[in-house]
């Protein structure tokens, strides 16, 4: 047991996990009702094509692979072993589908381009290749079922194989194994061409004929359903295509065309980044696919994670990972909220912050408070309450009323004159904002820690939560492994370091975004700093303002419009699900937040309070994307004008 510790959150990539590991780590999002647009049975049964959109690390690959034939076969075998089903094929008949996971990596996709070959020729080579990849996938699954004696021998050998060998023009083939080898050889033919084309300008002439679109991808399922009785009724062929955003535009046209003409029993489930469609066009120039007609969309990440389901889902994901480390499993330390603490303790954080200079926040406002005012509203046990008291005084409430309201709140006297408002202001409205202001006054960074905080910081992206945990465990192991293992605790400081480091790394990664990285980085820096200035406002006039409204779809400048779309695609900014009012009383429009993971870098809140948003016009967006160090003054003024709030001490505010 001495060496049984390893970081439970490291090294798990859904693409490379083996089938059993997919099952081991699988947490069903349907149990936690994370999707409102789709139910579990839709995966195999819904006659529409479905596109799953989400940023990097949102769990799309895990999700698609779970429904694939090899993984479901493992489940089917378990069912059979537990006497839940007589035959494996019955499991699939009950599910009503077979899933075929297709992932072609980026470097391969990009190799179908250039070297003096025109797009049309590359398209037909790619189509041939894609058909082979899909066809091989089908044959592999059918062979597996046949080897497990779930399909009739005469149907396979006398009907299925002859029909397939006819469409692939290979009359000698007698077995499924030989069929698979034939597919392998033809795929290798394409690979050899890709390897040689940089040196020799030869045309691609497949030795036994090329395959047009649908030939195998639709042709083989048709043959299967015609010739194999077990597959005849109620089993759909589901193509699970991953990383669609990597497909080049001409390649997406090929697949889009398949979406348009997909048959009843052949359906697509496509995983891609947000805004991952490079085109909605098809091979035919004057036709295109449309949401609602050729496909429906399911979004993997939600900006406002109010639904408790997401927290429970994260806990379940974490539990599986903690259980995989024997030393944690044996000691029953499998609740991530115990390691991180459930929520922040802002009172404790505030006390620690002011400990070396307890009166500094009063000094900060001394121009507006007398010594007796300060005496009256002091409460050494809670600097946040003291700051709230200062705020109330600045907003015109008499000092003795403030004092009474505080005392009523502390004593639980709900009948007190201002107790209800005081309670609401402190608990519901301003506590976190007060903490940010206190940090600003004491010139210290806000700490980011706790399960609740990490859940928010992850911005609906499970992979972000996992990375925050990975780093936290890594730092904890380095600094105090015993505390981590024996007590199952990670300090607030270690968590804050993890959050800050990850935030900084993600910020730097923006520069690597294809084409627009530089200008998106500028935008985020500028808007992040504007939000930070809002958080530092002495009167907390804009509590936790960290969202903006904008009409991105109608930006007149195509370059900046494309850049904002890229920012969405890469989850750098996230759109709120529905149109909202940018501020109380305003008309509905699109509201965006920056990815919560950037909050530690800009020292801003990780939540969304609602309330006010910064309104960005087209020229604002261009300015924020083009210039460095844009001043927040204009935006503060904008909010000032909108809120119309007046204060006793106007000269307090710039």
């Amino acid at each position: 047991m001495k060496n049984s510790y390893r970081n439970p959150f490291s090294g798990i990539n859904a693409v490379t996990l083996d089938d059993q590991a997919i099952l081991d780590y699988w947490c069903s999002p349907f149990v936690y009702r994370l999707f409102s647009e789709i139910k579990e049975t839709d995966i195999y049964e819904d006659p529409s094509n479905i596109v799953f959109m989400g940023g990097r690390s949102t769990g799309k690959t895990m999700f698609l692979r779970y429904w694939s034939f090899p993984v479901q076969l493992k489940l089917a075998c378990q069912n059979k072993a537990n006497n839940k089903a007589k035959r494996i094929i019955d499991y699939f008949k009950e599910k009503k589908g077979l899933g075929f996971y297709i992932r072609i990596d980026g470097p391969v996709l990009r190799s179908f381009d250039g070297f003096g070959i025109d797009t049309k020729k590359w398209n037909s080579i790619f189509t041939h290749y894609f058909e082979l990849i899909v066809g091989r996938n089908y044959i592999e699954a059918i062979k597996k079922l046949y080897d497990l004696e779930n399909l009739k021998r005469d149907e396979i050998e006398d009907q299925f194989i002859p029909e397939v060998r006819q469409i692939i023009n290979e009359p000698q083939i007698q077995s499924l194994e030989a069929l698979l080898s034939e597919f392998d050889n033809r795929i290798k033919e394409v690979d050899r061409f890709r390897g040689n084309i940089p040196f020799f300008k030869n045309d691609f002439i497949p030795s036994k004929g090329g395959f047009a679109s649908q030939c195998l991808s639709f042709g083989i399922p048709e043959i299967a359903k015609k010739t194999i009785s077990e597959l005849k009724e109620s089993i759909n062929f589901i193509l699970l295509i991953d990383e669609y955003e990597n497909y080049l535009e001409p390649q997406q046209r090929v697949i889009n065309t398949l979406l348009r003409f997909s048959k009843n029993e052949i359906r697509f489930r496509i995983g891609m980044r947000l805004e991952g469609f490079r085109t909605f066009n098809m091979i035919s120039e004057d036709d295109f696919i449309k949401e609602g007609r050729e496909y429906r969309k399911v979004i993997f990440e939600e900006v406002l994670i109010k639904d408790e389901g997401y927290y429970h889902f994260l806990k379940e994901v974490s539990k599986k990972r903690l259980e995989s480390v024997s030393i944690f499993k044996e000691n029953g330390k499998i609740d991530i909220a115990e390691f991180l603490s459930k929520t922040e303790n802002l009172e404790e954080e505030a006390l620690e912050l002011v400990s070396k200079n307890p009166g500094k926040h009063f000094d900060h406002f001394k121009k507006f408070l007398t010594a007796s005012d300060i005496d009256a509203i002091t409460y050494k046990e809670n600097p946040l309450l003291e700051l709230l008291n200062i705020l109330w005084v600045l907003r015109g409430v008499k000092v003795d009323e403030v004092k009474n309201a505080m005392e009523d709140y502390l004593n639980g006297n709900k009948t007190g004159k201002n107790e209800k408002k005081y309670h609401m202001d402190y608990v519901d409205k301003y506590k976190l904002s007060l903490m940010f202001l206190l940090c600003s006054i004491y010139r210290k960074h806000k700490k980011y820690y706790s399960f609740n905080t990490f859940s928010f910081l992850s911005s609906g992206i499970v992979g972000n939560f996992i990375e925050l945990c990975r780093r936290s465990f890594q730092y904890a192991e380095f600094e105090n492994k015993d505390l981590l293992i024996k007590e199952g605790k990670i300090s607030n400081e270690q968590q804050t370091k993890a959050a800050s480091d990850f935030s900084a790394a993600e910020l730097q990664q923006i520069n690597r975004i294809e084409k627009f990285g530089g200008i998106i980085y500028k935008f985020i820096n500028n808007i992040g700093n504007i939000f930070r200035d809002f958080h530092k406002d002495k009167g907390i006039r804009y509590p936790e303002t960290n969202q903006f409204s904008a009409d991105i779809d109608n930006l007149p400048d195509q370059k900046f419009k494309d850049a904002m779309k890229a920012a969405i695609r890469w989850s750098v900014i996230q759109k709120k699900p529905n149109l909202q009012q940018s501020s109380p009383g305003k008309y509905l429009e699109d509201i965006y937040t920056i990815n919560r993971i950037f909050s530690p870098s800009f020292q801003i809140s990780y939540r969304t309070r609602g309330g006010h948003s910064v309104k960005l016009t087209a020229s604002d967006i261009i300015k924020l994307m083009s210039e460095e160090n844009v001043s927040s003054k204009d935006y503060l003024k904008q909010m000032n004008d909108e809120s119309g709030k007046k204060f006793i001490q106007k000269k307090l505010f710039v």
Partner: protein
Amino acid sequence: MRKLVYQMDLISGEINDHDFFLLSGGSDYRAYEVLRKMKSKDTAINKILLFDFYERVRDIDKSDPYFEYQTIGFNNILPIKCSIRDPNSCLQDLIPLEAEFLSTTAPKIALDISCFTKPYFFYLLKLFKERFKIDSISVFYTEPQFYLFPGGISSAYRSSTGPLTILEIPGFSGYESRGDRRVLVILLGFDGDLSKEINEDISPSETLVINGFPSYSPKFKDISLVANEKLTSDRDIKVKFSRANNPFEVFNILEGIKNENGKSFINIAPLGTKPMALGACLFALNYPDVRVVYPLPEMYEKVTTNSCWNSWRYSFL
């Protein structure tokens, strides 16, 4: 009887005459170090092919060190106009020379890889082997004395700016057979972003890294490990070591990996030193089922090194 299959020489004295000498234009001082040495030793070269990348010349003026090749004293320099982003772009200028390459039975060809990007010299070596049927080439390389870290050694090193696209090096697509395990071997460099991006894009079942040790300077081996911490801290990543200036050691390690991994699709990402990358290239030329991938950035930094250290010649016999 022992047979010599490769040779690695420190250049100090005479340098053999050559029929062709290929090198890359560049603003780094070491771009023309071997050419200067050849001049000082009165080495005879029939034709010098200088790969003239338009991305490197477009924003510089005539006083830039890039143009120093014009003052070294050779009058038989033929510029090959090409794009650094597309190795295939040089083919149109090289094809007319094909007859010259083949005009002698064993042409003496030398390639200075000091300032070529790795995809470029990979492409050239395969071009010579596959198309021109020449597989005996002398490869020259000059070590940098310093790498440039604008923010200091503890800050991240960047050899490029802007977004990255992970590509197969042209001609090195390999073949992935059904059921193969994917193995990724990364030759570690200083830019940690690159290895992370590649590991995610390729998504291998297993990743191994080869770190250059001994390196040109003792601290470099640590810089590469620290820069790639996100990758190397993963429990499943195995780290191997190979001398940073010896391609043949890398070749042997890769061969060992291939033998250990049986039915696997080997992917190599040569992010480390150029001699290490040369070893990967020789390996991939020997084993065409291996794939070599590389991150193509939007823009390369103009100068990433300073001064020169040793110059080496690697010969394959």
